């Protein structure tokens, strides 16, 4: 009985320890994320990499390295509809969070950062993407905002709210009383249809 209790307590203790250990870097990460999450301010401070030497006096291995890798992939997932809307000068470099209190000595573990891209407005809506950078690699890209419904999955009901025209059920009408028909007519079926129309008019 005592042994069992001991065993259980030990297990609980070690689990807690594990969780605490595992959890603590993540917690610091969250804290560290906060500053990076607001590069929305349009002042491009560290545009040219040469101009940012003081930030990384600490032994942070990937100094300015992540920056270039951020650029191409963030817009790719954002799918900006207008290529012009891509502001190339987001201050991603700036917030090289001053190396957080990493107590443990796990040296090779690369730092993970979250970088939020600027909000980009296009005619379909507002797009904002956040990437997760581990060392020099982008490990995840999350869309914080996309035009409602995403790419092509918007239902027509959603569309109608922003739409000047009118909408309703598609109806069928007789096509006898027309001179010609516009349609995506590409096959012999259409040929017959067109021919039929021509004959009707000709005689």
């Amino acid at each position, binding site marked *: 009985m005592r042994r069992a209790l001991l065993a259980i307590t030990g297990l609980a203790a070690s689990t807690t320890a594990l969780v605490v250990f595992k959890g603590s870097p993540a917690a610091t990460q969250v804290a560290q994320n906060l500053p990076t999450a607001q590069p929305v301010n349009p002042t491009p401070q560290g545009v040219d990499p040469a101009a940012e030497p003081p930030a990384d006096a600490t032994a942070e291995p990937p100094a300015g390295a992540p920056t270039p890798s951020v650029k191409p992939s963030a817009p790719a997932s954002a799918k900006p509809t207008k290529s012009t809307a891509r502001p190339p000068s987001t201050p991603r470099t700036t917030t090289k969070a001053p190396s957080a209190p990493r107590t443990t000595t796990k040296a090779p573990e690369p730092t993970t950062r979250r970088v939020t891209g600027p909000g980009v407005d296009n005619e379909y809506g507002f797009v904002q993407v956040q990437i997760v950078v581990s060392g020099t690699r982008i490990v995840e890209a999350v869309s914080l905002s996309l035009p409602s419904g995403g790419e*092509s999955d918007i239902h027509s009901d959603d*569309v109608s709210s*922003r739409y*000047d025209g009118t909408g309703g059920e598609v109806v069928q009408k007789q096509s006898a009383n*027309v*001179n010609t028909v*516009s*349609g995506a007519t590409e096959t012999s079926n*259409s040929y017959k249809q*067109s021919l039929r129309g021509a004959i009707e008019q000709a005689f």
Partner: protein
Amino acid sequence: MTRPGLCRVEQIMGTAITLDLADDLPPAALHELADDVFAWMREVDARFSTYRPDSEVCRFDRGEVLLSEASADLRFVLEACADLWGATDGFFDAYATGRLDPSGFVKGWAAQVASDRLLAAGAANHCVNAGGDVRVRGFSPAGAPWRVGIRHPWDAMATCLVLTGTDLAVATSGVYERGRHVLDPRRGAPASGLRSVTVVGTDLGVADAYATAALAMGTPGLGWLNGLDDHTHAVVTDDARQYHSVGLPLTD
């Protein structure tokens, strides 16, 4: 029942070209006009067909013809396609399939040129229908404005809307005849959401390209069409809803 003018149908560009001349001209003159129209359409087909390895488009695509050596028509079409690529946010893409295929512009453009030439030749009342892309001018043989039906996407023998006018370019792109053949050039995947897109303007080549582009955009294409100042449209979605601009020249 007799009517003035002449109506002729020929199979060119893999589709039916219908010419309806409504002017009360001597038969010989009408036949000559019609001969010219169809000779032009065959010329366009020979030059721009992507199915003929010896067409100028294919030879240009293979690098056997330089731009400086290309015909004026090909250079015009390439330039127009480049402009339309920009005007459609890249959704009208003559290179969407990986090789040059300006068909989405050429068919409407060819019919537009035919119509322009008829007008210049004194045949101001006519209808040119190139595989569903329609250019009408003046009045029909009945003496009334032309009536242009828009094909019902699920019923080839019915229309869903009827337009009327004396100067209209009406182009329709749909996924019902050839399946989802229109690619979203950005994803390389078939577009979805829209079943049929009709664009109405005064230049059939542009209207054709716009209809193709909007179809490729999928549902967001509706908003894009909505923002066009100089064109009206009618759209049928995959879920059988129909949208059209208020200014569409509808009739019963």
